[in-house]
């Protein structure tokens, strides 16, 4: 029974029905429509953000790309640009990534290679719990609990490595620790479960033959990992990290609550304050009433959309066909 059909198996969709049934046609149209709806949704997001952003961009008195201002109080005199938003968004996300990437790699290795098989599942659940905490709670915790605790460390970093631009004194005082650095640490905690869960799955799929082969050659556990698990899972790990990056770029409320702002432009220090795209939009959400100023924020949202679009597209191309989940 099976043998007769397996000639074209593997691809569930590869089959040409001899008889066209109306039910099939309807169902096919329905599912295709659902798939199409997703494509259309993305197109609409881009389109509508663009439509709403263009009038404000046209009315912008500053250069949108290089201005550090974001003054929208007077609709007739809009002055806004994304220089600082971009710097702060990228810096916070990079800090988060630099912390979260090695740690998630360690966790994924621990869960797949080191932890006792019986405990691997509950341990994995514990890491996943980090993803169950809503971002507003991360924000509360970040500004009221973690920030004050990190403050001495940040002051030490600043006074010891202040000669290095990243650790130079920023445009806000460190006191209160509402800095890019604190945000990065909190974002890192939020990224851990995201990066870990994908990486874990990829590592699990390392061919047992390879691992056993390496063991048979007398490799230590670490050597097994280095020669089999890591090369096998590298693209998946990098793709997972890019997904995490995408999430960090768009994180809103946690950043809004934690990050202090500054009237001075950002100067590429981790102890700067400011806004990310997302937190800037959310900070003004209560004042969305006039079309032109609102459009200024929508244009920031458009840039964020493009940014995450690019990051996700890159993640996908790195993952290639095999690790794209």
């Amino acid at each position: 029974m099976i043998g007769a059909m397996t000639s074209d198996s593997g691809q569930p969709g590869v089959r040409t029905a001899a008889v066209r049934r109306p039910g099939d046609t309807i169902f096919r149209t329905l599912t295709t429509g659902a798939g199409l709806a997703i494509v259309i949704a993305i197109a609409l997001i881009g389109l509508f953000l663009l439509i709403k952003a263009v009038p404000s961009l046209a009315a912008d008195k500053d250069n949108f790309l290089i201005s550090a201002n974001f003054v929208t109080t007077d609709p007739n005199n809009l002055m806004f640009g994304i220089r600082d938003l971009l710097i702060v968004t990228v810096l916070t996300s990079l800090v988060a990534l630099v912390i979260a990437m090695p740690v998630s790699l360690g966790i994924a290795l621990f869960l797949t290679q080191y932890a006792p098989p019986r405990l691997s599942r509950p341990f994995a659940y514990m890491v996943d719990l980090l993803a169950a905490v809503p971002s507003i709670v991360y924000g509360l915790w970040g500004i009221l609990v973690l920030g004050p605790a990190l403050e001495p460390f940040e002051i030490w970093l600043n006074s010891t490595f202040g000669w290095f631009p990243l650790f130079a004194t920023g445009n806000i005082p460190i006191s209160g620790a509402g800095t890019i650095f604190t945000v990065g640490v909190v974002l890192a905690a939020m990224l851990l479960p995201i990066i870990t869960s994908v990486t874990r799955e990829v590592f699990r799929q390392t061919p047992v033959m390879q691992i056993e082969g390496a063991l048979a050659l007398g490799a230590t556990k670490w050597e097994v990992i280095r020669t089999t698990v890591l090369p096998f899972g590298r693209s998946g790990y990098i793709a997972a990290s890019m997904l995490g990056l995408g999430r960090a770029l768009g994180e809103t409320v946690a950043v809004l609550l934690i990050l202090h702002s500054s009237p001075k432009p950002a100067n590429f220090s981790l102890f700067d304050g400011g806004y990310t795209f997302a937190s800037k939009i959310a900070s003004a959400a209560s004042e969305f009433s006039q079309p032109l100023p609102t459009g200024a924020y929508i244009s920031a949202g458009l840039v964020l959309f493009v940014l995450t679009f690019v990051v996700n597209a890159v993640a996908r191309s790195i993952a290639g066909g095999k690790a794209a989940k």
Partner: protein
Amino acid sequence: MTTTASTLDRPATPPAFQAVSGSRKIKNMVATVLVVLAFLIALVPLVWLLISVIARGYQALLSSDWWTHSLKGVLPKEFAGGAYHAIIGTLLQTIVCAVIAVPVGVLAAIYLVEYGRGRLARVTTFMVDILSGVPSIVAALFIYALFLSTFGLGQSAFAVSMALVLLMLPVVVRSTEEMLRLVPQELREASYALGVPKWKTIVRIVLPTALSGVVTGVMLAMARVMGETAPVLVLVGYSKSINFNIFDGNMTSLPLLIYSELNNPNPAGQLRVWGAALTLIILIMLFNLVAALVSRFSAIKTK
């Protein structure tokens, strides 16, 4: 692993196994320590955060009013009322979102697995990935631009649900897709062999087989959108009363309750903030737990 074999078994040229050299041992040790350390580091924020939230918020949850009453008519400084209106709001918005997102998501997944070929399928897969990367604030802005700004509709819980749909769709599609791919090909073929049409095969054979996995995915997706704060800031107003009407009026969800009570200077406000945070975490964990249980008891089916 080292040599304890008898003389007879020994190969001709000694030594067969060299003792693992010191530097390799040390490297191995360091790696082990680092990996275990990484796991412990992950537990630090989790434990710290949970303890902070529980310590500051558990008192609010002890009162029975918390689960059964709204905050209507309660003064900012009174230790009274509850989060019932916000719990209801959170559940309503999430459920309405699921009602829209699940059918579309499952159908799209069926398309990708059972029908998808050619360019449209590739584009759809790509777009699902992109959609899963769309930040919640961008989804909220889009709905704002579409519903509020273009159609001139007012703020409503339905607008929030629509923004959540955008966030939930890719999760549902991805998990359903994965589950459908796990359904053994033989099942489909057996069905076709019996002359069952393709659509009926999918609806009657493939979907039921994958059902529990799909349910798990949906529960996880609901847990994910439940805690979203950005859409509620832009798309709906705060209310202290219970509101069951999705289309009209203000509706509070737990994130919105947290965000509004932050501006309440009184100790009662702080308690509400942390109490709501704890409630939200518990709610999300419940969804996760149910998802875990469903997937656990049904794992046999798919393998």
